[in-house]
């Protein structure tokens, strides 16, 4: 039995190390972008958030407008738990001057997939145990045992490695534009129902993650700004408990919130949207300029 355990552990170390080596060798794709944030970027401004961040903020425009360097660390489908953990790994090595957190109004509503997708952070656990354990521990109490195995750290990553090796997914400092616009003849009068990845209950872990995100930034004297992205349809967030709480927290913590919901420049403008929730490249260009103008006005980089 002991011999088998030794053989298995050796196999895990050898094969798991190969799998991790392959993982970290990626040049493009979502994992490569995360690795760049964790290992390499020295940008002055880093943008965090879900697909809205990833698709709406053009680093080159921010570079030009604010005379600083910018990297877009937005990650599709990821939420506050992930962003907070990513920020902690980033500030261990580098201290940006400004962090932009693109806020989704439902960020504080509980979501199973938000926990499931934390597995994207597993490959970093060996090097960032202290930063990641509080977050990954929310998903499993046995996280130390599970991530003891190198092959588990790289679980389910090989297809991404092969996919982006065969078909690289180019980005521009983390930004990937969406092209195409809404067909104005086929737009429903009211917003179509979406598949909800959340339930409308406030998740205390997500609230704590947001507070932790703010505290981490403050502890490193990093300026922080929250931004909400425009949507095609008018949104009424008066009854949205998640967004109400986010606004209260930003007020309490004195974090400026640039609210672009229902912004007249974007609302009901099909030429600026790829879908009802995401701006296309033209929309992203206009939005990024609006955000940088506001940041200039607030003199956050002075």
């Amino acid at each position, binding site marked *: *039995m002991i*011999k*088998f355990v030794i*053989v*298995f552990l*050796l*196999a*895990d170390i050898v*094969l*798991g190390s190969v*799998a991790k080596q392959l993982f970290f060798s990626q040049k493009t794709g979502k994992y490569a972008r995360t690795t760049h944030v964790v290992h390499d970027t020295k940008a002055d401004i880093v943008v965090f958030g879900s697909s809205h961040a990833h698709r709406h903020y053009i680093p080159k425009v921010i570079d030009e407008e604010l005379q600083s360097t910018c990297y877009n660390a937005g990650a599709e489908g990821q939420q506050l738990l992930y962003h907070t953990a990513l920020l902690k790994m980033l500030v261990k090595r580098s201290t940006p001057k400004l962090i932009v957190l693109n806020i989704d109004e439902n960020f504080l509503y509980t979501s199973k997939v938000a926990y*499931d997708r934390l*597995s994207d952070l597993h490959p970093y656990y060996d090097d960032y145990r202290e930063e990641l354990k509080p977050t990954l521990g929310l998903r499993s109490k046995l996280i130390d045992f*599970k991530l003891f*195995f190198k*092959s*588990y750290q*790289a*679980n*389910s990553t*090989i*297809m*991404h490695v092969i*996919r982006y090796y065969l078909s690289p997914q180019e980005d521009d400092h983390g930004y990937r534009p969406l092209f195409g616009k809404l067909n104005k003849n086929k737009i429903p009068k009211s917003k179509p129902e979406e598949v909800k990845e959340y339930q409308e209950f406030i998740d205390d872990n997500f609230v704590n993650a947001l507070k932790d995100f703010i505290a981490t930034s403050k502890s490193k004297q990093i300026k922080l700004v929250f931004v909400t992205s425009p949507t095609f349809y008018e949104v009424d967030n008066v009854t949205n408990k998640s967004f109400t709480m986010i606004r209260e927290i930003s007020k309490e913590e004195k974090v400026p919130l640039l609210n672009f919901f229902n912004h007249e420049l974007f609302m009901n403008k099909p030429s600026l949207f790829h879908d009802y929730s995401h701006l296309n490249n033209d929309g992203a260009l206009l939005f990024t300029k609006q955000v940088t103008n506001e940041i200039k006005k607030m003199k956050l980089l002075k």
Partner: protein
Amino acid sequence: MSTLVDYFVGHQLHKSAGQPGRKKWLWLSICFNLGLLGFFKYYNFFVASMQNALTSIGFEVENTWTLNIILPVGISFYTFQTLSYAIDIYKGKLKPTNNFIAFAAFVSFFPQLVAGPIERASNLLPQFLSKRNFSYQNFSYGIKLMIWGFFLKLVVADRAAIYVNAVYGNIENHEGLSFVAATILFAFQIYGDFAGYSLIAIGTAKLFSFDLMANFNRPYFAASISEFWSRWHISLSTWFRDYLYIPLGGNRVKKPRWLFNLFITFLISGLWHGANWTFVVWGALNGIYLICEALFLKKKRKGILNVFVTFVLINFSWIFFRAESIGDAFYMIKTIVTNPGRLYVGSGDDIAASLYAALAIGILVLIEVKKEYFDTLFTISNNRFELVRMLGYAMILFLILYFGVFGKGQFIYFQF
């Protein structure tokens, strides 16, 4: 309660051997056990079905009878296990035990309590009564079974489930080809899930030197439906054979009655799987398959073509098993025929999940083909070189850790 009643009934049956009226003790056991099962599992189903039937003929009835009750875990399994104890004593095949603790342990033996294999008292109960010693060989074999079981569950079943759930959970947005692909994947999902659980249960029992019966024997290599049912969920198939089909007369009756016995056995087997008409239709369909085989196929079937035909027929029946409702199942079948359309592949992570599932199923099929047709060739599990054996199982563990789905997924058969 089941344990107490059957322990008591067992003794009463034994004491009253040869006396008139002892049948009442058997009926007490049957009524009590099936009553509990019926109440917890089927009461709400029949109330809702009755209400729907009345509504469909124009009587609007307010439903105030359904109860907010939770199905006790494993009730379908331990009910059959305790029933077999009482029936075997009644038939004189078994003597009741005086050791209540051993009997209670037999009814609620933790590895197989929630999803089988459904053990017989004649096999499992004596093992509680005799002394067992730790055996390194048993322990090692148990671990091997568990490793393979976890591969089937975490890599094969749970990977396939991602595509299956995406399609079956959203049928209005998919076309015929996607339904075919999802159903084939479901065939492997349910096999990986249930055979995986069975192996984990058998392996866990083996660690303590208990022997549980085998529950699966590479069912998708069956060349006929009857052979399939001798390889799939063997503990349930043999239970129904011994305690329902044969008491009904089996095949030693006139042909119409024999065919009725086949049909009713599978109809009830379908209902056992769940309180939904989809399971009833699934059971009935398998009954019809067997009736057709009994009527039209005289020779024992063999060969790859028959294996393929059987696989297709079984897959067709899985549509009813997995669909949310009978209406959904017929909608899917109609769409497969009339609108094959395009195959749903999803994007990004969905494609990766499907590729992992295909890879896992590929590994499973290769290993099962080797075991089924070339078993005397190279072997890893019984290789004479210890290092080869260890490397083989280390590799399976690696595959589990590298490709497995580690969420909070349940075993499908936990719901039955």
